[in-house]
């Protein structure tokens, strides 16, 4: 691991000022905020990330879950994944989020990982993690080893000729279906970013994974008021039953009245280069009967435009079945 200076800022303003000196807030940043460390330290040991300065945000007052006046919930940046998953309000009103978090990683990692850190979780693409191999995300312009290499775990939606890396988060998929908002404080002030706009597609700049600029500190995430009567579910399919990343997953928030779907929010994990909200699947479902045929049509719509690679073609059908099964199970709950 490269040497670095470890700093603990007294407040958010100092943390922002320290990080604002970094050339970028994206891959290869000189200054990194450190929360749980479960992604960052792993990548620093691999020399994939080599920050000169680590700014410890763990003792900033960003660790609370609070009700907000509009009836929603504000989740602090440093709230641990386990605390978020077990919060009684989250379990009751945002079940899909609790389920998604508990489907990810291990109990130890969930005790460490933070809300903001999970939003910034990096891909598990083996070429990104191996500095001996070309990777456009790690070293722009060197090429994508995965397109002609081992790509069984990688994305089929939102890919480009430059990068097909999967976003590995479970939490973000549920937050996409819940239409969360990411709140950021930076050198130029505060801003609120809908989660759908927070992550970027790889395009020609796979090293840019989100809209953060140097000094931008995620302070909290807000969830809109719970949808009364909604049925929620997170379904994750993977190679082993626990402690494994998704091959395909689905987060669904469904409202059914008199046998018809009146509202649907759908997001997929394990198949996209970002947490994959599917407006096509949602509009295919609203107004339709809550039955297997409609759910399959919605799943087909969600995967329309999927671009399989040499080893991951199975993900297209797997993701469809995952979503159809999630919708069926949620509707019957």
């Amino acid at each position, binding site marked *: 691991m490269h040497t*670095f200076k*470890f700093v603990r800022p007294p407040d958010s303003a100092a943390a922002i000022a320290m990080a604002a000196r970094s050339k970028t807030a994206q891959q290869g940043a000189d200054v990194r905020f450190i929360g*749980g*460390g*479960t992604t960052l330290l792993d990548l620093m040991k691999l020399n994939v990330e080599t920050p000169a300065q*680590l700014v410890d945000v763990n003792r900033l007052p960003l660790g609370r879950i609070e009700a907000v006046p509009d009836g929603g919930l504000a989740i602090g940046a440093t709230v641990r994944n386990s605390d978020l998953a077990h919060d009684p309000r989250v379990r009751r009103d945002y079940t899909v989020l609790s389920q998604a978090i508990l489907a990810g990683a291990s*109990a130890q990692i969930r005790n460490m990982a933070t809300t903001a850190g999970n939003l910034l979780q990096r891909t598990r693409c083996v070429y990104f993690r191996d500095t001996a191999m070309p990777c456009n995300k790690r070293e722009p312009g060197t090429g994508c080893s995965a397109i002609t290499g081992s790509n069984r775990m990688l994305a089929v939606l939102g890919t480009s000729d430059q990068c097909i890396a999967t976003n590995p988060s479970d939490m973000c998929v549920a937050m996409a279906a819940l239409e969360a908002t990411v709140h950021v404080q930076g050198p130029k002030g505060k801003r609120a970013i809908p989660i759908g706009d927070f992550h970027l597609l790889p395009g020609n700049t796979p090293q840019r994974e989100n809209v953060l600029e140097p000094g931008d500190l995620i302070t909290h995430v807000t969830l809109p008021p719970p949808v009364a009567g909604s049925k929620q579910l997170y379904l994750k399919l993977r190679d082993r039953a626990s402690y494994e990343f998704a091959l395909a997953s689905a987060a669904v928030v469904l409202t059914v009245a008199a046998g018809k779907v009146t509202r649907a929010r759908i997001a997929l994990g394990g198949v996209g280069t970002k947490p994959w909200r599917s407006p096509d699947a949602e509009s295919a479902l609203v107004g339709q009967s809550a039955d297997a045929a409609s759910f399959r049509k919605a799943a087909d719509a969600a995967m329309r435009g999927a671009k399989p690679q040499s080893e991951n073609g199975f993900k297209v059908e797997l993701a469809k079945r995952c979503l159809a099964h999630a919708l069926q199970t949620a509707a019957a709950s």
Partner: protein
Amino acid sequence: MSEDSSGPTKKPTRRTFLRATGSSAAAAIVAARVASPGRKTPSPGVDRPNIPGAVPVTLRINGKDHSLRVDPRTSLLDCLRETVALTGTKKGCDHGQCGACTVHVNGRRVLSCLSLAVMHDGEDITTVEGLGTPDSLHPMQAAFLARDAYQCGYCTSGQLMSAVALLKEPCGPDDAAVKELMSGNICRCGAYSNIVAAIQQVRKNA
């Protein structure tokens, strides 16, 4: 190494042998990396208070305060093993994939390999050495013995720390729930069913 020089009849154990050879070799490598040109390489076992960039940190480990100076890169795991010489906590993958390094920080189980020692200034750390003693085992240690919940033992301290933390976490009554919450601790020997049995024994008697 007084225990090694007590007489020709006393053979070195695997542990004392590794301590004598391994730690000096490791210290030499570390010294070579951190020593700048012209700096004297400290002898093995000698404190190195003037490592460039070293920072002070106080950890409360198993109820006892340790005021240390560490290179900021030091993981909590390496700090426990190399600086404080508590080698019960094991290094498996060093990348958060195996759970062998599991310890408790402020009563919650975490992976000490994916955490920096300096992040835990003033915090309470519990390692397997703080769980029980040979004369007075923690109930979970006794249950692991009774249920034969290990073979080679390398993952055992991590399994124990996870299992003890699990007792205070939301966990359903059945074996499947225990398996799910223990999935972050890999056992290469495959002692899983006995580990689950040991944990369930402690939960039933609690």
